[in-house]
């Protein structure tokens, strides 16, 4: 409990001031992150409000099971992180280091599942761009286009339902941008946790403030996912 009696930087008066500075700084950083992600949530709100039916249809193509497992993994990793901070505060740095490693491993597990999911989505042709498979979202594939329409379209050349743009592409665009940015934050978090875990094994390697702030970052990443999960994966279960 009495490891850091004096501040490590000379412009602080005491350790308490240094700790408060570190905490407040981290929270302000998190505030900027909230608005950073906030733009994407705003974009999501817009798309969802504009075309709820299409978004619901597109959302059905995501694997709810994988998303749910990932949520549980992240929640648990946050829990392990709090334990790491708890023991580090009480001077048990070795135990804390291992708990941080466990947290990082859970983060990697999250990323592995996420990658599987990406591969699946991309293989189905849902990566936005030129090869986006619109017909998966077009009811006319489910119920073939009546001959009348085909006949009528004949005057305008071939019918290419797969070239018909649709809001479903925007949904997948949002899916990749939102989860991609979140995944990037997880990657940064995993690296950060591993580095701190290594530093913790050396005396004086990582200060308590550092571990606390890494924890705040990790929990924040968790908070973002808590909103991403229902908005992306459960949209198909909502009605208006």
């Amino acid at each position, binding site marked *: 409990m009495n490891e850091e009696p004096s501040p490590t930087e000379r412009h602080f008066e005491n350790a308490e001031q240094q700790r408060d500075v570190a905490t407040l700084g981290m929270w302000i950083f998190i505030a900027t992150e909230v608005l950073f992600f906030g733009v994407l949530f705003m974009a999501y709100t*817009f798309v969802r409000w504009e075309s709820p039916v299409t978004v619901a249809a597109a959302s059905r193509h995501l694997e709810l099971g994988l998303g749910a497992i990932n949520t549980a993994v992240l929640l648990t990793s946050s829990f392990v992180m709090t334990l790491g901070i708890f023991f580090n505060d009480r001077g048990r740095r070795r135990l804390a280091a291992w708990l941080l490693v466990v947290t990082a491993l859970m983060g990697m597990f999250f990323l592995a599942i996420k990658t599987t999911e990406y591969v699946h989505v991309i293989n189905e042709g849902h990566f936005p761009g030129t090869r986006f498979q619109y017909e998966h979202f077009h009811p006319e594939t489910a119920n073939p286009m009546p001959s009348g329409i085909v006949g009528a379209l004949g005057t305008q050349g071939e019918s290419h339902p797969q070239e018909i743009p649709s809001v479903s592409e925007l949904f997948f665009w949002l899916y990749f941008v939102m989860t991609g940015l979140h995944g990037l934050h997880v990657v940064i978090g995993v690296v950060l946790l591993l580095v701190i875990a290594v530093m913790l094994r050396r005396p004086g390697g990582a200060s308590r403030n550092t571990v606390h702030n890494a924890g705040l970052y990790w929990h924040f990443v968790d908070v973002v996912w808590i909103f991403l999960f229902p908005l992306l994966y*459960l949209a198909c279960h909502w009605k208006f």
Partner: protein
Amino acid sequence: MKPTQPTIATYVKTWLVLLLLLALTLLAAHFDLGSFSLPLTLLISITQASLILLFFMHLHYSKSEVVVFACAAYLWLGFLIVGVMHDYLSRNWVPQLTPQPSSQNQSH
């Protein structure tokens, strides 16, 4: 008087409640709750996020300046979403008055 430090028991309880709420979300998704479905799911998410903020991130034990900045971010996100959506949502109001009606499929 606020406690200054959470205990392990607090962490365990918070974690269990979080998982429980996740289960609740999934359960709710299996029933057709109509228009209640979205608000309910969001309410659960907000509860989960609040628990993490309060206990895992120690907001419950923090100084007021930290709480102010933690909350300000969400307030400002609210400014953004409300400010933008009140434009889109009001575009269909009383179409006689709006010569450039909009594309949107929901009014209100």
